């Protein structure tokens, strides 16, 4: 009995060390794991996959470095998928701190897919305004983005000459770590019937399933798990796929510790009674 109680009262620093070990070892050893693709991610993939070549996809970078480990792999995988399908990509965002992450991903993916800035993709950068801007872009994108983030006029990009508002955007992708995805769905999806898919952090995912079930979004990529599933679908494993064994090991440890802690608690309560 004392054994369980001792285990239940073990110093938290030991638990941190254990967690560090179970996270680090799988990253180094890289055990092979099979990733089962969930329906929400498959739907998100399908929404991109069904678009005809030349369609315009707008990716909104609504996350910043604090959630990059989860959302950045989604951005990389989505860009690979969009470029493979020869879609035109517009990148913009609602968080100033997130836009450099878009540049990192574009600099990584565009050269390997043979895509050229201005011909195949543009980066508008960040503009303030949030919901007012979201609604305003339904009339004319140029009211908010006359130039890209390098101060080059939008109309100097050939494919942008035909893009004026949401009617010209086949799919909107919000990669979000907060309530921005909700705003895109409510303000743009509701008002303009814009097709939307969302990639979000694990914390946000449960709140977004309601939109998926109601058909307000066409797909949902939730957390590192979702990112790894998308990487599986685009057949290019990346950092998310690499992190999944560590994720599973950490979850296993947490469940084990929860069980041990509860047994210890129940036994000590029984003893006191």
């Amino acid at each position, binding site marked *: 009995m004392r054994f369980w109680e001792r285990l239940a009262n073990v110093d938290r620093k030991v638990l*941190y060390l254990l967690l560090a070990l179970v996270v680090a070892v799988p990253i180094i050893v890289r055990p092979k794991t099979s990733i089962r693709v969930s329906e929400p991610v498959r739907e998100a993939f399908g929404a991109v996959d069904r678009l005809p070549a030349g369609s315009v996809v707008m990716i909104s970078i609504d996350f910043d470095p604090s959630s990059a480990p*989860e959302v950045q792999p989604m951005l990389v995988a989505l860009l690979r998928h969009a470029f493979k399908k020869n879609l035109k990509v517009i990148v913009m965002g609602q968080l*100033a701190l997130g836009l450099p992450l878009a540049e990192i991903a574009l600099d990584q993916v565009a050269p390997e897919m043979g895509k050229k800035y201005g011909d195949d993709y543009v980066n508008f950068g960040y503009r303030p305004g949030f919901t007012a801007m979201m609604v305003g872009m339904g009339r004319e994108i140029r009211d908010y983005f006359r130039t890209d983030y390098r101060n080059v006029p939008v109309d100097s990009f050939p494919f942008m000459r035909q893009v004026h508002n949401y009617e010209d955007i086949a799919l909107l992708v919000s990669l979000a770590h907060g309530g921005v995805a909700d705003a895109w769905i409510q303000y743009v*999806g509701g008002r303009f019937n814009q097709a939307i898919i969302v990639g979000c952090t694990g914390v946000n995912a449960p709140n977004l399933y309601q939109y998926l079930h109601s058909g307000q979004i066409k797909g949902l990529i939730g957390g590192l798990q979702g990112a790894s599933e998308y990487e599986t679908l685009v057949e290019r494993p990346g950092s998310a796929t690499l992190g999944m064994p560590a*994720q599973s090991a950490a979850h296993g440890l947490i469940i084990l510790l929860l069980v041990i802690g509860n047994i210890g608690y129940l036994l000590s309560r029984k003893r006191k009674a």
Partner: protein
Amino acid sequence: MLLNIIGTWIAATLTLAILSFLYRDNPFYKVAEHIYVGTSAGFAVIYAWAFDVYPMLVDAFRNNLAEHNYWEAWILVVPTILGIMMLCRSIPKIAWISRWPISFTVGIGSGLGLVAAVQGYLLPQISDTLRPLITVNNFVVYIGVIATLFYFYFSKEHKGALGVLSRVGIIFIMVAFGASFGYTVMARVSLLIGRFYFLLHDWLHVIR
């Protein structure tokens, strides 16, 4: 190349400094925390000035004047004044001036939000809830929604049938919280994995 190496070493040092909080609160952690907050704020200010205020206000004003678009140039004075009024918030004696631009912002937010809440949230969610009772899932949705709503009905004491319903509502709420907590744990572990990946891959080159 050299700058990349220096950057990686700084990032790795700051990561370890932040993780040192797990042992206990210490000066390394505090320094890293302050650097993070300061850098983020500094970056946001520079970004807002260089990519928004300067091109959209200063440049736009100059360009419009040069093209003789006087109306489009001088209208920019209005957001400039509102922006300056907003900054008055930091001076206690004239902080009340900031209420004007705040009220303007709140007005826009409410106006837009009202339509979005009804059109983009309430109506689609209600219509999705009202499903035909032909599957077990739909039946569970009905029970969950009704029971949870009854739990939040506080005008009557939760006794008898109302008590039973509200207890069922608590179960549904707890299941929702559980799912949310599970995802939160996953998210936090993901962030830890991200940092470990950075330390082992970018810094120590243990993995390739």
